[in-house]
């Protein structure tokens, strides 16, 4: 069968939809280069001043640092917990594995604001309010579905006989997992981890309920800055976030062909 190329009308319509969806992003990126002190489109003159201002502002730098630490720790924890859970589910080591899988995926279906409120109440009940630890726990909850989804897909696509072969050849269960299972599901895990990183990096609705004054993340800082008025500085930092996300996703696609996992 030969692949049919879409016709002119379909292609133009698709391009139009992409343009419409990406319009806000384009506006923000363009506005970040403006010489004016207010947001304007098209930008008046071209300057990199706003980027310099943002990158020398300790408030922004601190927020970027907090966001990175949070995203890295949440993703690492999610990886360990999510892979362990997925393995138990995929190999039917626990009763009710279907239910368990749905439970772990639930945060994808629940509105983020609801998760935020629920977390806030839960943490104040157990007396864990306002610390960085609570933020990490919350981010694990919202990122673990991405790890579980790609880990389950990878594990179910793998021949169980390979693990059995390793064990018969003298490897204990953990060694068999480390030397055979893990390398085989790695592309899926890399994809899941990058996705989890991006989700944690850009989260507002859950974080805003839990972040204390000393844990302002980058998206929260942008969100609060906007209340004071949108300056090209906000646009510049948003542009940085967009570019960073894009780079991560492109790398992921390059390394793992990861569109298969999302």
């Amino acid at each position, binding site marked *: 069968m030969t692949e049919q190329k879409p016709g002119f009308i379909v292609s133009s319509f698709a391009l139009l939809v992409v343009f419409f969806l990406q319009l806000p992003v384009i506006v923000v990126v363009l506005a970040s280069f403006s010489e004016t002190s207010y947001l304007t489109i098209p930008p008046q003159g071209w300057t990199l001043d706003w980027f310099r201002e943002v990158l020398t502002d300790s408030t922004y730098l601190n927020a970027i640092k907090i966001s990175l630490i949070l995203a890295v720790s949440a993703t690492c924890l999610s990886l360990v917990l999510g892979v362990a859970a997925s393995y138990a589910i995929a190999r039917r080591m626990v009763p009710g594995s279907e239910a368990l899988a749905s439970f772990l995926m639930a945060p994808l279906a629940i509105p983020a604001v609801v998760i935020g409120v629920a977390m806030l109440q839960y943490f104040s009940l157990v007396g864990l309010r306002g610390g960085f630890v609570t933020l990490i726990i919350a981010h694990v909850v919202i990122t673990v579905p991405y790890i579980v989804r790609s880990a389950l897909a990878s594990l179910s696509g793998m021949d169980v006989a390979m693990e059995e*072969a*390793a064990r018969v050849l003298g490897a*204990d269960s953990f060694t068999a997992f480390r030397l055979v299972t893990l390398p085989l599901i790695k592309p899926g895990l890399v994809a899941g981890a990058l996705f989890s990183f991006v989700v944690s990096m850009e989260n507002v609705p859950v974080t805003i309920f839990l972040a204390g004054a000393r844990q302002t993340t980058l998206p929260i800082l942008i969100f609060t800055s906007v209340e004071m008025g949108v300056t090209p500085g906000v646009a510049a930092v948003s542009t940085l976030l967009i570019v960073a996300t894009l780079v991560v996703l492109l790398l992921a696609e390059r390394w793992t062909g990861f569109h298969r996992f999302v």
Partner: protein
Amino acid sequence: MSDLSLQRLAKTYDGHQAVRDVNLTIGEGEFVSLLGPSGCGKTTILRMVAGLITPTGGSIQIGGRDVTALPPNKRNIGLVFQSYALFPHMTVFENVAFGLRRKKERGSELESRVNEALALVRLDGYAERYPRQLSGGQQQRVAMARAIAPRPSLLLFDEPLSNLDAKLRDEMQIELKRLQRDLTITTLFVTHDQTEALSLSDRVCVMHDGIIQQYDTPEEVYRRPKTAFVASFIGKPNQLSGVVKGQSVEISDGVVLKPSSLDAKNGQTVDVFIRQEAVSLLAKGNMSSDAVAATIALRSFSGAQIQYVVRLSNGSELVVEAPSAASATNFEPGDTVGLDIRPDDMIVLPREG
């Protein structure tokens, strides 16, 4: 090198008895096949021996050591899977070295033993390839090399040839036989292919419904089946039922068979199994008095053999296989022939139930 002994081995899945109190002993260096249709429990036995599933009852001994409670990695076993289960992210060398590395082999000793195993399966020079760069037959041989490299005390095969095409299967069968003879490792071979089981094994264990039907040499299993299941499963026999009359079996009026030995009472209903190659067709003119009269219903030429479907006077049909030598008499549908059935090759078993 050591023997394998199963005592009252049993496995029950959700109330279904897959394996029922199986007792089986395989001598040192012996090649034994577990033969039976799918669902007969043969793979379940193999997986219990490997330690991949836990029996519900009984015990497994390898070389006199009770391994029933040991995990697979403590049993010193080689296993060749139906899907080969090669590690796709490792080279052929690393696949074969996997078991040796678990035994802490390093350096030149490791290298020489991997190369030795690859030479045994005639894959020298393929060490740096990846499994996906090999053909099905080559992957199969890597799987064998991987299983034998750590010098296991017991070798298990789970339908290893069923994924290969017919020609390759025959080649691998010979290769396997040669390998087993050279290494003399105690071997348990699971298959549903009777030709494979008969030609490879020292002894064949025919299974049905989780029970051993017969455990004998290939010749005995073929020539003297002990149960109706074995008689109908091995070979491609014709099955007729009749009643014992003195020293012969009456199939219906006029059709009487005279087997050489008859271990049944007068008047008992019996099944008679007649192999396709145990019957000679005689032209109408030179029929002996013992020959059974029949008509050719169908003729099918398949190269070395010609298969005839012949119809008896009572309407039942038999399949007869005749060599297709140029000198042999050729029959056409509609011809009347005599069936000369060798008395030694008639297998008579009392009707069960």
